[in-house]
């Protein structure tokens, strides 16, 4: 059946997502589910495609006219849902609002902080001056949703949630919103870009994994995201269903206590006595622990194939991917040898921590790693706990080794700056460097890359810095998650590496 037939048959799309949308205010809380919905209602200057590559959005083009000056040419004839025209003033207004959203627990302010000055050249041209050379400005612009100066003057988060202010230029307009339950959308017939396939969308939130799958199987919804890996095999076999998959941008990795020279809190010797020095400071030990892990087995057995073993942040095809750096092969023998070299022929004991409600199968993965480490003589106790308690303790550096994940912007500087770089309050580096890894050489390379406007040269610098970090086992990358959506057979979906689930990506087959 052609698209037209499918459309008349099902003008409404019922879809369910696994993470609740907490706010329709696009500048209130940086959270994937919120961003996905914002991307349906609003637009950004620069959009991203399924592979996280930049595409013209409300800006038709952008160029660096000086190392610290960017010029954006805006699209003409774009109108907000209420008919107001989109102009450069709206962008300026948006930049002003972003840092001033009251009570925001996780604001978007960091994206406008590098901006020193915005100059409106004409109604559809902007010149943005940054504090020093800032190559990441376009990347930052992919995160900011543009509001209308007239409409959104003085509106509050509640106005967005109530629908009064949920007015953008995006492909859908919001019809109704029941917090934490569902949002109903209607197609924006005036949309400047590709016309979405469905006239109405019923966007439901079903947080329980099995319930979401059941809703799809029962036919209550036609499309779901975050397909639980346990159900993959069954869903793949189901003739009525189709899947859409893409390797994402979220790396699951292990972090170690690099911070303590003396005893690390959850490490003891093979007999359970304290060890006065922290073995995890020894590169050989870290290598051994990484080597002991059979990533392919974890991906196959625990993740049911929904992942790609990796030794670095990104999958191929992403800017600053290290081409000749394959995932570590398991080598228990080699690992034992390295341990012996490092002075632990009997191994030692360690507790591996991790969350049990954050990433798919997180609790299972740490158990599997526990098995593998125990097999090379590192007797591992495994402790999983809810993210709520886990993350604060991890942040305070209370653990010796723990599993955690990181979803990157598609640019090596992003994970490097946050996970690897030495913690530095001034520069805002190392925010999530919970193992307190520190390597001055890498810091220097990163600093240089962050001033390099030329993409090719910047990529080389970033590759070198990443390589150095992984060779020093700053963290132990495990695998990159695959994002999976499931739908009725008569639908198709343009998958997205950035995990956003949006109605405009779904079309009848």
């Amino acid at each position, binding site marked *: 059946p052609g698209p037209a037939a499918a459309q008349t048959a099902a003008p409404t799309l019922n879809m369910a997502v696994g993470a609740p949308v907490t706010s329709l*205010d696009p500048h209130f809380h940086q959270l994937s589910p919120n961003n996905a919905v914002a991307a349906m209602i609003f637009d950004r200057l620069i959009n991203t495609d399924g592979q996280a590559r930049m595409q013209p959005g409300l800006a038709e083009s952008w160029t660096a006219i000086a190392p610290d000056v960017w010029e954006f040419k805006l699209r003409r004839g774009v109108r907000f849902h209420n008919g107001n025209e989109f102009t450069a003033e709206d962008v300026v207004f948006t930049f002003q609002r972003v840092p001033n959203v*009251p009570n925001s627990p996780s604001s978007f302010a*960091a994206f406008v902080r590098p901006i020193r000055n915005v100059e409106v050249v004409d109604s559809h041209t902007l010149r943005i001056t940054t504090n020093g050379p800032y190559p990441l400005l376009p990347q930052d612009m992919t995160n900011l949703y543009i509001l209308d100066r007239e409409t959104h003057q003085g509106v509050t988060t509640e106005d967005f949630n109530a629908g009064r202010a949920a007015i953008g230029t995006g492909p859908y307009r919001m019809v109704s919103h029941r917090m934490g339950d569902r949002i109903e959308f209607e197609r924006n017939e005036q949309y400047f870009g590709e016309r979405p396939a469905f006239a109405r969308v019923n966007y439901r939130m079903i947080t329980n994994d099995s*319930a979401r799958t059941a809703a799809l199987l029962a036919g209550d919804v036609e499309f779901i995201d975050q397909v639980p890996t346990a159900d993959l095999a069954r869903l793949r076999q189901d003739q009525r269903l189709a899947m859409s998959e893409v390797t994402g941008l979220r790396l699951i990795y292990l972090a170690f206590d690099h911070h303590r020279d003396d005893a690390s809190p959850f490490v003891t010797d093979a007999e359970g006595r304290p060890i006065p020095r922290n073995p995890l400071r020894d590169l050989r030990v870290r290598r051994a622990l990484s080597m002991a892990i059979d990533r392919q087995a974890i991906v196959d057995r625990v993740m049911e194939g929904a992942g790609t073993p990796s030794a670095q942040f990104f999958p191929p095809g992403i800017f600053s991917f290290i081409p000749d750096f394959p995932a570590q092969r398991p080598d228990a023998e080699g690992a034992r040898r390295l341990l012996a070299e490092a002075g632990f022929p009997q191994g030692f004991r360690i507790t591996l921590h991790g969350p049990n409600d954050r990433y798919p199968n997180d609790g299972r993965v740490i158990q599997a790693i526990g098995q593998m480490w125990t097999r090379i003589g590192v007797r591992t106790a495994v402790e999983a706990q809810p993210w*709520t308690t886990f993350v604060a303790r991890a942040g305070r550096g209370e653990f010796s080794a723990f599993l955690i994940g990181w979803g990157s912007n598609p640019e090596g500087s992003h994970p490097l700056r946050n996970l690897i770089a030495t913690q530095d309050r001034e520069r805002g580096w190392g925010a999530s460097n919970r193992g307190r890894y520190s390597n001055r050489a890498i810091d220097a390379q990163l600093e240089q890359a962050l001033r390099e406007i030329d993409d090719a040269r910047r990529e080389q610098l970033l590759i070198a810095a990443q390589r150095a970090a992984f060779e020093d086992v700053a963290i132990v990358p495990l695998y990159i998650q695959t994002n999976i959506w499931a739908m009725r057979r008569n639908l198709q979906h343009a998958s997205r590496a950035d995990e956003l689930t949006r109605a405009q990506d779904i079309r009848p087959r």
Partner: protein
Amino acid sequence: MTVYLLRRISQSFLVLVAMSMIVFVGVYAVGDPVEILISPDADQMERERAIQALGLDLPLWEQYGVFVWRALHGDLGRSFVYNEPALQLILQKMPATLELAFGSMFISVLIGLPLGMYAGLKPDSAGSKVIMAGSILGFSLPTFWVGLMLIMVFAVQLGWLPSTGRGETAHFLGLQWSFLTANGLSHLVMPAINLALFKISLVIRLTRSGVRETMLMDYVKFARAKGLSPARVTFVHVFKNILIPVVTVVGLELGSTIAFSVVTESVFAWPGMGKLIIDSINVLDRPVIVAYLMIIVLMFITINLIVDLLYSALDPRVRLEGKA
């Protein structure tokens, strides 16, 4: 009566204060909401700004003081996550939970009372043994497991009922209710049954033991000695007496159902308060947690009060003045 109410109110007030303090200290100990809420790539500056924006920079006792001060003015704080008044958030979700709780209570009484009466009147019959053994199943299996089983059978396999969600709603008293539409009602059935299972067992058990004890009372025998029909003896003399414990326990259960239908709500994606509180606990959204508990405590107190009043309506021997 007035004294009784006053006493209840003053005691309730103390309970509220104690509860809010426990929650404040408890949530503080569990973790740091900023760690959970903030984007992981936010730098230190961002973090500090967020901490300040949420008022978490003050010492705990000062935060508590601010809370109390505002609470006395009717403001229970704003949600960290939703940036909406916590009270409003909770009240939005309340109808969903209320109808689920009342639905399940209704089912459990509808099924439990007759079965319990039967089991009590004929304690040695095979039927009553089956009922009693069956009622154990009601609380043997974890709710989440039974819930998914229901979905599998009735939604996925048979396709009789919708799997999850709340369905269409209709306006009534300015709120959205799903029991008023056929579609909404069909959504309500399964979660309500899931939640009712435990209560059905409870009601059966209570009713049975109540009937057995009441049947032995002299006044039942005297009623028979008056020549009343067995039906009148059972449905007037016995029934009204067993209603007393049943109403008490069902009332208290209603409270805990409203408060803690967390698991059922999450399995059936039922957008009620239970899901709100578990979500809020997961992100340590303290204003919502505190406001929620305040409301729950108040609700418990109110339900207790209503139960007591009902109790005295049903049992004329109980005079409220006499109770401590």
